[in-house]
């Protein structure tokens, strides 16, 4: 079958070689098919919206699009986002959307873009693109839009186009931006005096020694959070670019160098990005287009978002739990214990309160060397040949090569168990993803009312990732750190290689009658090596009926179809033999065993989507309302299914689940009221209801990665939404926590657990406004979500007055000192995550043309902007916009020791010469 289709494509191509056609625009058609006319929502292309200063372009997805739930998972420079479009579908694979950047399809898995040696959350792989190089972002959500991306479109598609040269005289652009940062507020912890008093109470109540005679002498004590903050953190960005174009050639070359120091000491991100786009007409009928982005990212990271397992060291957790009685000048060597006892002068006594190790936060953030360098080359070259009138052959070749280097050195004094000599490591990862595609497009108008366009094509895409890394322990001399791992004694080497490939065929027909009725049919066949190459068809149909046009636009949209997703690692279908080890007689013996049962008959996850849409435009679309209702059902959702013990395996991957998402979205766009004042406002509101319809033979699967020893804190259950928190119900009585005995058997067992919250928001909203008056531009944006819960694991430590660590002030006043609440995962940890945030405020001034021309310049714009200005929330943690587990959507809504986001204040100037 596939072979035949290929032959048809080739024959059709060959038939058309001899005819010459004219084409006027030197820019190619968008390489990706423009389905925006049919899509439930494309864009509101935020080119009108200013880019986030020194951020990543995917931050623009937060609050600017209906149906998009975006969480900035961390405040670390270049930190990752978690993005869901119309809810979650997969229980084992990825739920992130597919990005198409200048025609190149890319699934953004931050974990694959690093080798994973450095501390802290993964770097956002999309930070290789500078947000100011982005021309437009469109979000495709419904079946017709996503069906063009077939087996990878179910989670939505984000179409990104970068800026290109325009016809005109060459223009030099220079931009400078300067800014500073300070962390969002931390939880209010006990002062020195209060902590000493609290410890005295707790110790006497617990019958422990260690009374401090004069708590008042400690005063405020050491504010560890303040100590590791870098309040002088700066960011600066320098951009130089040239763009221009003539009849036959247009180009834009832009260089960016930016430095972003973290608001916590020891972390930063330096970026050098070269972005170069060229469009050229080679002959009258042949056009070429090249999009190139080269980025070098150089980051120092620190250990935030630890899991509290002891082996991992967490800076933020350490700042919160460390005794305020300890002096901040302690070095790593003499303060490895967060609750070391002190005498009346604050000197540590040899006696410890508990042996749980936590290195002091200052040493953690400054003495550990954790560095990442990513170099990424992304290029897509397209060629467009007009064969005869209306018939165009479009081909493209693209490659995205990523070279990653990571280095880590933890000095011996900081290590858990104080291993002498420290630990060092280095790793190198390289990956390359390539694509080759060819399309034949036909477009013709019949008469004055009939427009027809059709397309057939194919695409091949391949991916290879290789990794080589080594760690070394017990350095005899620690001077050289990771630069010479041979100095260490215990050495460990890892390497890995994975590949996968995709093969796709596509066809579509688009018919429009009188600009009033449009019918779009698409069909795509995809096959992937990840399940052995079996092809699957993804069809979709779309109808658009413009009921009335002039002055009062009313348009109805309907689409239905099937899309897929298969965002799982390669090779899941194989039963894998791997090393296991133990020792006999003190000597390590390694064995090899089938550690994983191969997943049989893996299929694409398929999502059936139905979308009903209504557009209403008033006053020549100055007031535009877009409303959508959607209903999506994902069959064959991939799930890690637990296996009965007698199989000898814990779980296996299978397409067993059925997941439904349904909801509505409303966007209201207003613009240009008045002559002098221009106003562009966007309101977006979306509601999604997620439901696990079917979970195969098992109705319940407990999941949840370990945090502070608690795992299985979430459950997948038929009839419930993904993201349910699963634990005990509790109540505080006289400051003592009591768990509810739900099954009434007289004791608290695991059978007493129930659903105690859900991380998925019911409503997500954004509101952005841009006002223009005589060259002054004011922009502000509010965004937020409601109905979500957050599991605040920080409360296990700073919400627990057991005398083991510092605590929040509110805990002291409401609870019984010395009550040990550090027990089970219960609703005691669950908080309402609803929030509304004033995300941005920006003022810009475009200098009057008369003045600028006097200086022989094109334009000058100055601006000032602030980010994360105000947040309204009941959440007691630092930030309700949080995702401890980053892109692991199943484990969303967890807060534990994360890197706090910053208030940013930025000023800049853009000059065109």
């Amino acid at each position, binding site marked *: 079958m596939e072979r035949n289709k290929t032959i048809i494509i080739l024959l059709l191509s060959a038939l058309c070689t001899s005819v010459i056609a004219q084409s006027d625009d030197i820019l190619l058609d968008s390489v990706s098919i423009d389905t925006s006319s049919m899509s439930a929502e494309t864009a509101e292309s935020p080119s009108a919206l200013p880019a986030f200063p020194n951020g990543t372009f995917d931050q623009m997805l937060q609050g600017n699009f209906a149906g998009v739930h975006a969480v900035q998972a961390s405040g670390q420079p270049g930190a990752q986002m978690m993005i869901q479009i119309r809810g979650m579908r997969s229980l084992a694979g990825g739920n992130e959307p597919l990005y198409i950047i200048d025609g190149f399809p890319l699934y953004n898995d931050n974990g694959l873009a690093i080798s994973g040696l450095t501390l802290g959350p993964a770097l956002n792989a999309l930070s290789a693109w500078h947000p100011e190089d982005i021309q437009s972002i469109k979000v495709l959500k419904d079946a017709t839009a996503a069906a063009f991306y077939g087996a990878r479109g179910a989670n939505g598609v984000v179409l990104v186009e970068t800026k290109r040269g325009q016809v005109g005289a060459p223009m030099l652009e220079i931009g400078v931006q300067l800014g500073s940062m300070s962390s969002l507020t931390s939880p209010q912890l006990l002062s020195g005096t209060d902590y000493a008093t609290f410890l005295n109470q707790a110790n006497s109540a617990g019958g422990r020694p260690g009374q401090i005679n004069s708590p008042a002498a400690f005063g405020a004590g050491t504010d560890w959070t303040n100590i590791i903050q870098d309040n002088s953190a700066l960011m600066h960005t320098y951009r130089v670019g040239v763009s221009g174009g003539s009849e036959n050639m247009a180009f834009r070359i832009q260089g960016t160098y930016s430095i972003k120091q973290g608001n916590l000491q020891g972390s930063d991100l330096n970026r050098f990005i070269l972005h170069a786009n060229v469009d050229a007409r080679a002959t009258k009928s042949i056009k070429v287009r090249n999009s190139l982005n080269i980025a070098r990212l150089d980051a120092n990271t620190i250990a935030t978002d630890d899991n509290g397992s002891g082996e991992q060291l967490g800076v933020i957790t350490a700042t919160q739990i460390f005794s305020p009685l300890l002096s901040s000048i302690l070095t790593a060597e003499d303060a490895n214990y967060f609750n070391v006892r002190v005498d009346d002068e604050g000197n540590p006594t040899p006696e410890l309160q508990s042996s749980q190790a936590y290195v002091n936060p200052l040493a953690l953030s400054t003495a550990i060397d954790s560095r990442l360098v990513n170099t990424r080359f992304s290029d897509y070259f397209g060629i467009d040949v007009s064969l005869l009138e209306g018939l165009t052959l479009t081909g493209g070749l693209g490659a995205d090569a990523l070279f990653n280097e990571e280095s880590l050195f933890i000095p011996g004094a900081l290590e858990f168990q104080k291993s002498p000599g420290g630990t060092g490591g280095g790793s190198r990862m390289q990956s390359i993803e390539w694509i080759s595609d060819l399309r034949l497009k036909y477009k013709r108008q019949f008469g004055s009312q009939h427009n027809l366009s059709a397309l057939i094509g194919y695409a*091949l895409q391949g991916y290879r990732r290789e990794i080589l890394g080594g760690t070394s*322990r017990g350095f005899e001399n620690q001077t050289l750190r990771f630069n010479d791992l041979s100095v260490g004694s215990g050495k460990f080497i890892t390497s*890995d290689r994975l590949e996968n490939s995709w093969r796709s065929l596509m066809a579509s027909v688009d018919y429009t009658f009188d600009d009033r009725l449009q019918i779009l049919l698409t069909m795509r066949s995809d096959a992937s090596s990840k399940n052995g190459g079996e092809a699957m068809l993804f069809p979709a149909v779309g109808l658009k009926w413009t009921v009335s046009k002039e002055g009062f636009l009313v348009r109805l949209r309907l689409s239905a179809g099937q899309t897929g997703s298969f965002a799982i690692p390669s090779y899941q279908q194989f039963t894998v033999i*791997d090393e296991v080890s133990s*020792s006999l007689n003190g000597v390590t013996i*390694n064995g090899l065993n089938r550690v994983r049962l191969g997943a049989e008959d893996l299929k694409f996850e398929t999502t059936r989507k139905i979308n009903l849409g209504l557009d209403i435009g008033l006053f020549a679309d100055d007031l535009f309302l877009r409303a959508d209702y959607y209903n999506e059902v994902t069959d064959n959702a991939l799930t890690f299914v637990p296996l009965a013990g007698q199989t000898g395996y814990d779980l296996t991957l299978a397409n067993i689940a059925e997941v439904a998402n349904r909801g509505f979205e409303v966007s209201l766009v207003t613009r240009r009221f008045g002559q002098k004042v221009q106003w562009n406002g966007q309101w977006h509101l979306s509601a999604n209801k997620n439901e696990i319809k079917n979970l195969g033979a098992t109705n319940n699967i407990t999941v949840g990665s370990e945090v502070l020893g608690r795992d299985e804190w979430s459950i997948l259950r038929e009839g419930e939404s993904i993201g349910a928190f699963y634990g005990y119900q509790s109540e505080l009585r006289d400051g003592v926590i009591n768990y509810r005995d739900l099954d009434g058997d007289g004791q608290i067992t695991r059978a007493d657990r129930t659903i105690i919250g859900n991380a998925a928001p019911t409503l997500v909203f954004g509101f952005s406004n841009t006002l223009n008056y005589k060259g002054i531009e004011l922009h502000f944006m509010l965004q937020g979500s409601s109905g979500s819960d957050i599991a605040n694991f920080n409360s296990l430590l700073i919400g627990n007055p057991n005398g083991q660590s510092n605590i929040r002030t509110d805990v002291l006043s409401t609870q019984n000192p010395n009550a040990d609440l550090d027990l089970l995962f219960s609703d005691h940890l669950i908080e309402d995550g609803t929030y509304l945030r004033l995300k941005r405020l920006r003022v810009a001034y475009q200098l009057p043309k008369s003045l600028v021309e006097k200086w022989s310049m094109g334009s000058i714009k100055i601006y000032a902007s602030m980010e994360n200005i105000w947040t309204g929330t009941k959440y007691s943690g630092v930030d309700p916009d949080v995702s401890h587990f980053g892109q692991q959507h199943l484990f969303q809504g967890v807060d534990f020791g994360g890197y706090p986001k910053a208030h940013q204040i930025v000023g800049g100037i853009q000059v065109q010469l």
Partner: protein
Amino acid sequence: MKASYPHIKALILLLAIVVSVLTWQSCNRALDEEPRSLLTSTLFYRTASDALLAVNAAYDHLGGGTSNSGFSGVYFNLYWAMQAIASDDGVAGIADPNSVQLSEFRFDPSNAWTTEIWQDIYKTVNVANIAIANIPNIEMEASLKQRLLGEVHFIRGLMYFELVRLYGNVPLVLTPTVDLSILDILQATPEEVYQQVISDLMIAETNLPVTYTGADIGRATTGAASAYLARVYLTREDWAQAAEHAQKVMATGAYRLLDDYRDIFLIANNSSKEIVFGIGFTFNNDAIWETSQFNVRTLPVDLNRNSLAWEIPTADVYNAFDALDRRREVTFQTSFTESDGTVLTFEPHIFKYWDQAAEPSASSSGTDFYALRYSDVLLMHAEAVNEANGGPTAEAYESLNRVRRRARFAEDEERPTLPDLSNQNQADFRAAVLLERRREFVWEGQRWFDLVRTGSLKEKVEAAKPGVTVDENKHKLFPIPQREIDLNSSLVQNPGY
């Protein structure tokens, strides 16, 4: 100008066609790709080296397990900790509901410990089944093949012996899991399971050597197989067979009691002649899972080391010792002197597993878990002979008294305690052996088994733990884990749960 365009276009189209055909072809191949950095099942179990590695994997599942597959071995921690706290020997040291429930005999099928132990054991069964199924097809030296098969039969027999004692009716899986049809295997009766245990251990007894040399030291021996057969028969009250197999071990001449009870637990003596079968652990900075969990679980929190006292001994077990009994001061400590002279005092905690000279930091532990020691063989022998003959014989006295005699010695000094026993009736002798077993094997994974098989669980536990109620009929087995019943509805729960 215009005339040249068709050529260029034709060229481009030709190029496009060539490129697309070539990439299509290459991609067609690529879609069937094989993983290059993963060993798949079809590439393994072919050579003698593969056979050895497959058998090693079974040992690895007994001890540390492995961090990359995310589990701990059968004897890593919960096995012996559960034997300690679900008896009169220990209680939970922290408020973890799982251990508190076991300690107070309030556990139900959702208990995490009994759930994990079930899974760990069946994983090991599967590893053994893989080796047993594949090794016969490998062309290799016959004697090595025979030995390797003996080793995995030993381990499988051992695993089913644990399963049948802990859970009673268990699915008897004897083939490797290749697909989910393995779930069709239903629970076997204890009798069927025991027949399999005996059959596996007899193959091991026949195939395995008396001792090993070099890097093979620590592997299962014929003596270990005989000793486990003795334990199996003892559990089944087949006294003559038990005595005979204990006698077999004694007759190998490969084992002896160390002179001082303390020396057994020194890391240097992990493979001493006292050890009939041990589970290897090592103090190893690089692989945290290969170290045992003895120190972290047993040593008191006040010690200011990596010591969390997750389980603590009962006063009852501490008081079961004569003050001069060498085993009491080795097994427990109530104080500790730091190097700077500071003296810490605390309630009795288990200290015997901490080799203080070898691992002063106690941060991890390289002490092995002794699954079966020679003193056990002697005590099994004494017990079996006493039962088989309707009372103690001279050889029964000798076996028991050898263990008591050793406990009188602190280095070279013989203390006036634990005199040799004589003139006991059968019941007194039976009680004496049980008491000796308790003192000899504190927290060595024996106590709950001993109490259940002697029918004294209720009596002893209730005496040691006031307020705790034991239902002998119910608590002679642990519950089939609820997780297993949820995933395999054909499983039938044990009575009372």
